[in-house]
């Protein structure tokens, strides 16, 4: 009897500990997501005339999918994301392999290399906009010193997207690096040592032993970076503002502007749900790949 009473008071107290969490997440995520579901199936484009919300079924979703600007922004995000993720993974892997180690120097190097990821994205964008300015930018000036003609960077349609990818590489490669440094550090030592005794070269050890063992964590880094760069907003906002034309009008930027400057709330809600569906698909695909890699690593 005493024990039962104790269990009840204990459980009630522990449940109370959860209330602040549920309250905050309710306000910031659950209610907005439910509200977004409601918006996506109604016509409610001007918040000041909110009373006239009308059920329209899946019409908003069709509007989004038939909107060439949205489809275009999806493709732009996809290009940006694939380019940035691939470059960040390759560079992050190379740098991570080079800066592994417990010495004081390597720790210091790693801390310095981490700095970009904690700078506000808008500042990163502003900084690069100055550096890549066509006339007064330092980069074109340095290029001219070695005889390369000035590039148009953010200001021409055919170079703008690549330039924003370059900015993202500066901004987000540190994240890949730090994850992979941790991955390499916690690698089992035996296979590597065995290969060294057998006289394998550094490249062989890296290619045939470390890389397969790192494959699962590489897929984690891929997932984080793919989703992260797909929904990039901050540095696009201060470098190209979506332009020139619509060449860097990535999904987040497109929806941000449609929602907050044009108040097309139903349109944005429907598009958002399509994007959540897309993210889930990416997560499922990469988790499957990761599971496959882990099994083959365990078997091999």
């Amino acid at each position, binding site marked *: 009897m005493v024990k039962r009473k104790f269990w009840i008071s204990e459980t009630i107290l522990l449940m109370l500990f959860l209330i602040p*969490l549920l309250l905050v997440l309710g306000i910031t995520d659950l209610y907005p*997501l439910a509200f977004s579901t409601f918006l996506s199936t109604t016509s409610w484009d001007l918040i000041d005339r909110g009373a006239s919300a009308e059920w329209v079924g899946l019409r908003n979703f069709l509007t989004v999918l038939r909107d060439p600007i949205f489809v275009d922004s999806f493709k732009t995000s996809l290009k940006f994301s694939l380019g940035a993720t691939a470059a960040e993974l390759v560079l992050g892997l190379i740098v991570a392999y080079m800066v592994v180690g417990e010495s004081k120097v390597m720790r210091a190097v790693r801390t310095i290399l981490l700095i*970009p990821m904690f*700078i506000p994205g808008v500042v990163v964008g502003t900084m690069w906009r100055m550096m890549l300015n066509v006339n007064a930018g330092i980069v074109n000036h340095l290029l001219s010193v070695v005889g390369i003609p000035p590039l148009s960077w953010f200001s021409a349609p055919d170079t703008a997207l690549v330039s924003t990818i370059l900015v993202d590489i500066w901004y987000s490669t540190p994240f890949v690096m730090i994850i992979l440094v*941790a991955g390499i550090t916690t690698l089992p030592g035996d296979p590597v040592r065995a290969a060294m005794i057998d006289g394998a*070269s*550094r490249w062989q050890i890296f290619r045939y032993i470390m890389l397969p063992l790192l494959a699962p964590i590489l897929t984690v880094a891929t997932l984080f970076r793919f989703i992260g760069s797909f929904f990039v907003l*901050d540095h696009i906002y201060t470098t190209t503002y979506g332009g020139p034309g619509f060449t860097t009008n990535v999904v987040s930027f497109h929806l941000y502007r449609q*929602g907050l400057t044009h108040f097309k709330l139903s349109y944005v809600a429907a598009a958002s749900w399509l994007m959540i569906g897309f*993210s889930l698909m990416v997560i499922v695909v990469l988790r499957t790949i990761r599971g496959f890699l882990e099994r083959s690593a365990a078997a091999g």
Partner: protein
Amino acid sequence: MQSVYIRAQIGEWLFTFFRAVVIVLSLLFVILPLIWLFINSIKIPLEWLSIPPVIVPSKITFENYVQLFADPNSDALLCLKNSVIITLAATALSVFIGSLAAYSLTHLKLPFKIVPFIAGMVLLLGFYPKITSVIPYFVVMKNLGLMDTQMAIIIAFVGLNLPTTVWLMITFYEELPKEIEQSAMLDGCGPWGRFYKIVLPLALPGMVVAAILSALLCWIEFMIASSLAIVNAKTLPIAVSAYLQDKGMHWGPMSALGTLTVVPVIIFCVFVQKYLVRGLTFGAIKE
């Protein structure tokens, strides 16, 4: 045999050389843009946009910084104040709410797998694209009359931080030895007492990690803050983003404001580097 040894030795030298080159190049790639930002912030107006760019300023001036704070049209001071208050408040709240909830999630026993369901839901909420909830949240805050207040941004940031904080704390609590708590329970210590007197001091390193990650995220967040702030609640990143179009040619003050935003981050990172790496990698390495 000898030749194999020599070849291996040459390979090692080449590797060391390659390694040094990669490290030096990546350090330069990271540091030079930041130094250039700082140099731009101490240039006189004539040299902001000169062609070709002035690499070594003819005269060093701190006028750009003074202007940010002295100019009545500049809201840099307000934004700095907002950023500091919002970061501190949101961090304190996230760590408090998150560690309390994580304690409950690791100790509570309820039927129907309710507890793992809540923990899983919290995890999922950390992963969906935030652009989805930005606009509905903005409408909610507008209806509550909380637009352009620090409060609206603080709540949003706590929500943004909670999934990471909760999961970080769950992994920390799970590493703590169960025996200490069990003996305290036998001595008649209730959940609050056990949390406050026993678990909290032991889990402090975890809370420090959570606080660091949370503070850094609040300091750099732009999308949510900019959707909620109009005049009074603007944060530093919003102030930087205002340097577009016509104002975008004011490279001096723009760089000064950028430098002002970056310097605290650099100092902070140096002091907390040990915790930082631990916090960043907990999700990827565990399992």
